[in-house]
C-alpha cells in the first residue's frame, strides 16, 4: 500500500540540523493495522503527518499506492489523499460552527459529490455509528467520546483505503477508548481499511496487527 524509503525530516535551528526523523524505511501492506509507539518527541506525529501528506520529508521517497508522492504537484497530491486517506485526531478537530451532520459531510463537499448522494452517504454513516439522534447538535454539545465518534465518521465518510489516527483515545476515558478501539478493529477487519495509529498505550497498541517503536527519530524495533 505504501512504502517509505530513507525518509528523514529535520529543522535548521541556529545553523545546526535537528533531526525529527532519521532514515526511516517502512513498508505497509493493505489491510494492516499498525500502531506507532514511542516517547514524546520521538517523531511519531511527524511520521504520521508525512504518511498523511500533511507534511513533507526533507529527504527520501514516499510511494503511496504506486505513486511517488514526493514528485507530485500539490493538486495531484491533494486529490490522492482526499480520495484515499482519512484522519482522526486526539483533539477531534471538528469545526465548531458546523453540526454533527455538516461536519461529517464536509469531506464530500470537497470531492464534488452531489447533494442527494451526500445525504445518503451521511445518513448511512450516522446510522452505522448510531448517532442519528445527534446529527443536529454542535460539537460542543457532545461528550469527548461522541466527538471522536463524529471525527471517525468524518474520516470514513469518503471510504478511504487508509485511516490515520493520532492518539485517537488520548482525550478519552478508558471505557470510551475501548469502544473506539473496538470500532477501529471492526473497520479494519470488516471494511479492509488499513489503519495506522499513534498511541502511548500498550493496550491500544495490542488491537493492531503490528507495532512500530520510534526513538529519537529512528525505528527502534518493529513487530511486523
Amino acid at each position, binding site marked *: 500500500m505504501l512504502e517509505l524509503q530513507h525518509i528523514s525530516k529535520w529543522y535548521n535551528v541556529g545553523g545546526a540540523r535537528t533531526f525529527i526523523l532519521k532514515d526511516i524505511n517502512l513498508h505497509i501492506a493493505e489491510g494492516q493495522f499498525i500502531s506507532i509507539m514511542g516517547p514524546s518527541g520521538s517523531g511519531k506525529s511527524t511520521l504520521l*503527518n508525512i504518511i*498523511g501528506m*500533511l507534511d513533507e520529508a526533507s529527504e527520501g521517497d514516499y510511494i503511496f499506492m504506486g505513486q511517488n508522492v514526493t514528485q507530485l504537484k500539490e493538486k495531484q497530491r491533494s486529490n490522492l489523499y482526499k480520495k484515499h486517506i482519512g484522519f482522526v485526531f486526539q483533539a477531534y478537530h471538528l469545526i465548531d460552527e*458546523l453540526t454533527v451532520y*455538516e461536519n461529517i459531510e464536509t469531506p464530500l463537499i*470537497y470531492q464534488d459529490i452531489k447533494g442527494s448522494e451526500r445525504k445518503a452517504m451521511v445518513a448511512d454513516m450516522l446510522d452505522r455509528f448510531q448517532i442519528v439522534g445527534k446529527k443536529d447538535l454542535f460539537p460542543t454539545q457532545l461528550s469527548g467520546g461522541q466527538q471522536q465518534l463524529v471525527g471517525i465518521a468524518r474520516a470514513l465518510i469518503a471510504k478511504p483505503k487508509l485511516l490515520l489516527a493520532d492518539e485517537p483515545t488520548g482525550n478519552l476515558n478508558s471505557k470510551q477508548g475501548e469502544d473506539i478501539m473496538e470500532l477501529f478493529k471492526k473497520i479494519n477487519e470488516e471494511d479492509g481499511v488499513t489503519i495506522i495509529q499513534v498511541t502511548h498505550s500498550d493496550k491500544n497498541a495490542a488491537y493492531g496487527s503490528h507495532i512500530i517503536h520510534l526513538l529519537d527519530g529512528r525505528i527502534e524495533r518493529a513487530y511486523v
Partner: protein
Amino acid sequence: MLIHYIKIALRNLAKQKGLTLINVLGLSIGLACFTLFLLYSVNELTFDRFHTKADNIYRVYRSAAPMGDDPGNMDSYMPMPLGPALKQDLADVEEFVRMQDAGWAEFVKVENNVSRMGVAFADPQFFKVFSFPLIKGNPNTALSDPRSMVITQESAKKLFGNADPMGKTIEVKLEEKFEPFIVTGIAKDIPANSTITFPMLANYEFLQNTKSGARSKDNWRRSSYQTYVLLKEGSRLANDKARLQLFRKKYYPDEEERLRKAGYWTKQGPPVSFGLQPMTTMHTDTRIGGGLVDPVDPKTIWILLSIAAGVLLIACINFTTLAIGRSAGRAKEVGIRKVVGGLKRELIFQFLMEALLLTLLSTIIGLLLVNLLLPSFNNLSGRELKFSFSLYPQMIWLLAGLIIIVGLIAGSYPALVLSRFNPIEVWRRKLKLSGSNMFTRSLVTLQFVLSVGLIISTLIILQQLNFMRSKNPGFNKENIVVVDASGTDTDKIFPLFKQAAAKHPEVKGISGAEIGLGEGTGYSRSGFDYKGKHKEVFEYFVDADYIGLMGMKLIAGRDFDPRIASDTVNSVIVNEAMVRDFGWTVESAIGQQLPEYSDQLKPVVIGVVKDFHFRPFSEKVLPQMFHQFSDYRPFKFFVRISEGNPAGVLAKLQDSWKSVVPELPFKFSFLDEDLNRFYRSEARWSSIVGWAGGISIFLACLGLFGLAALAVLNRTREIGIRKVLGASVPGIINLISKDFLKLVLIAFIIASPVAWYFMSRWLEDFAYRINITVWIFIFAGITAVAIALVTVGAQAMRAAMANPVKSLRTD
C-alpha cells in the same frame, strides 16, 4: 457547497457579534454614503435623457467671441421669432419649441384663494417634442387653446387638493390683471433629472399677445426665451457651422460690419454665431448660461464621488484589518478543511463568499439608511431625488457591481492570508497572530490620512464661509426686511405702504429699490464708453433714502436729496472702484459727467460711497453706481426695523401690506439671509465634506477600536507576564496605545500637506479669502490623536487592569 459556505459564514458572524457589528455597521454606513452620492451622480449624468427623442433635440445658443475687455460668452436666451424662422429656413428642423421658464412666482388665484406659483409658457408642440407624460388630457391638443394650461400633479394637489382640476379655471396675475386659464392637462411630476421644469405650463401664444410679449414679437433684438429644436433623424445641422452662420447673417445682416466699424471686432470670421447644443449635454456644460437648473461641472460630480469612495474605502479597510486580526480564530477551521481535502482555492472562494455575504447584508442595511437619509441629503444636494430602480434602472447594475467590488476589495487579502495557513503549524500553535503587520498598519494609516485630510478641509471651508458671512460688506445688512412687491402695481403701492408702515415705532426707515440683493435676485449692468474706452458698471435703481437706510459710508459729495429735482433725472452716486476705474480721484469725481451713457441721458456724479459688497466675496468689487432715474420702479421695499425679535414687527408690516394690497399675500425675506444665500454652494460643500470627514473618522475609529481589542486579545499572555514582572497600569496602556498613535501621527503628517495643497487651490477662487493658518492643522491633529487615544485607551485600560493570574492560567 454555496449553502454550506453561507451557513458557516452566518454562524461565524453570529459567534463574534461585536466584530460583526463593527464590520456590518461600518460597511453599511460607507455603502449608504456612497449609494447616496451614486444616486446623485447618476441623476446628474442622466439629466434630460429620459426624453425619447433626446438624441435629436437641441437647444439653440448664441456664442459671442471675446471682444476688447469683454471675455465673450454663450447663452441660450433667444429672440421670439427665432423658432419659426428656423423651421421655415432649415429643412432639417422638424419642430421647434420656444419656452419661457417659470423664473419667478406669479400670483395665482383659484376660487378666491391667492397663492404664488411659477408659470412657464411653451409652444403647443411641447408635448410632441419632449416626453412629459400626461396623466389626464391629450398631449396633442392640451396646449392648443391660448388659454389652456397644463399643471403638474404636485401643483394640482397644492391648488385643488383632492378635487379634479380638469376644466377648472386658474387665474394668473400677468402684468396688470388676473387672466383666466382653463386646466386642460395634468402632467406627471417632473423628474429630478430634468432641465425643463414647470409647476404650470401655459400656451406661448398667450405670452406673445401680452404687452411685453407684443414688444418681442417679430423683434430679433429682444432675447429672453429658450428655443429648442427637434432635428430630423440623421441630420448634421448641429455640426454645420456654415449653414447656421448663413442663417444668422440673414436675420442680422449688418452685425459683423457694425462691430468691425466700432473697432470691437478685428479678427477673421463672424463675431457672433448661433449653435445647437445637444439636449443630453445641457446639464454638464457650464459654459452656456440660461435655464432654471444650473448646469453642473462633471468635475464636481467626480470629486463628490471620490470623497464618497474614500469613505467607503475606509469601511472596506475596517473589514480587511479586522478579518486579518481575528484570523487566529479561523485558523483551526482552515486546518481541518485542508486535512479533509479542501484546496487553497476552495478556501479562498469560501472566504470571498463570506465577504460578499457580509457586503450584501451591509448593502441591505445601507439601503435602509439611504431611505432614512434621503430627505436630509436632498436638502444638502438641492435636488428632489427619489430612490427608485424604475427611475434609475442603472442603479441595479451599479449596486450589484458595487457589492462585488466592495466584497472583493474587503475580502481578498484576508482570504489570501487565511487560506495560506498550514494545518500542522496551526495545531502546533506556531502561527503568528498577525494583528498588526506592515500591511494592516499601512491600511490603518491610509484611513486616518483620508479622515484627517477631510477634517482639515472642512475646517478651512468653514473658516472661509464664516469669513464671508461675517465680514463687514460695507453696509449694515442686519435688521432689514425686504418686502417683495413684484407683480403688484408698485408705483402706486409703495408710497401707501410706506405711509402705513412708518406709523409703527419699530420701523426705522423704508426705501424702495428695483432689485433685492443676494443669489438669484439678478442685477443690471450696463456698458457704455468713457473717453474712448468701453466700461461696464453695475447699476442700482433706488430711491433717495436707500444709501442712508443701508448705512453706507459717503466719503465725498452728497446723498440724494428729494428736494433737488435734478436728482431724479441725472444724478448718480458711485463707489470707489468706479472712481479708480474711470481714472478720477475721490475729490475730483464730484461733478464728472458720463456723456456717452445714452443718447438722451448724461448722468453727473454727485457723491462717492466707500466700496461695498452687494456681490459675493468671491468676486472683486467692481464699478457700481446708484441712481433714481425716472424709469425706475420700486419692486422691493427695504424696511429697517429695530433690533430684537422681528416677529411682532413682521405682523405689523403684514397688516400694513394688507391694508394697501388686500388681495395679494405678503412676501418678505431678511436681507442678511438673502446675502448669505450667495454662499449656498460653499455652505453645501462644507456640509458635505464635513459629514464625510465626520463619518470617516468615526469609521476609522470603529476599526481602530476593533484592532485594539484584537491586539489586547492577542497579547493577553504578554501583558500578564509583564504585570507579574512588575509593569504598571500606565506602562501597559502606553505599550498598547503607542503603536496605534504612531500610525495616527504618520497619517497626520501625510494628510496635512495634501489637504493644504488642495485647499489653497480651492481658496484661489475667492477674491477675498482667509489665510490658511497652522492652527487649523494643529487643531485637526490634536483632535485626531485625542479621538484615537480615547478609542484605543479604553481597550488598553481593560487589558492593563485584568488579573494576570487569570490570563496566564487560561493560556
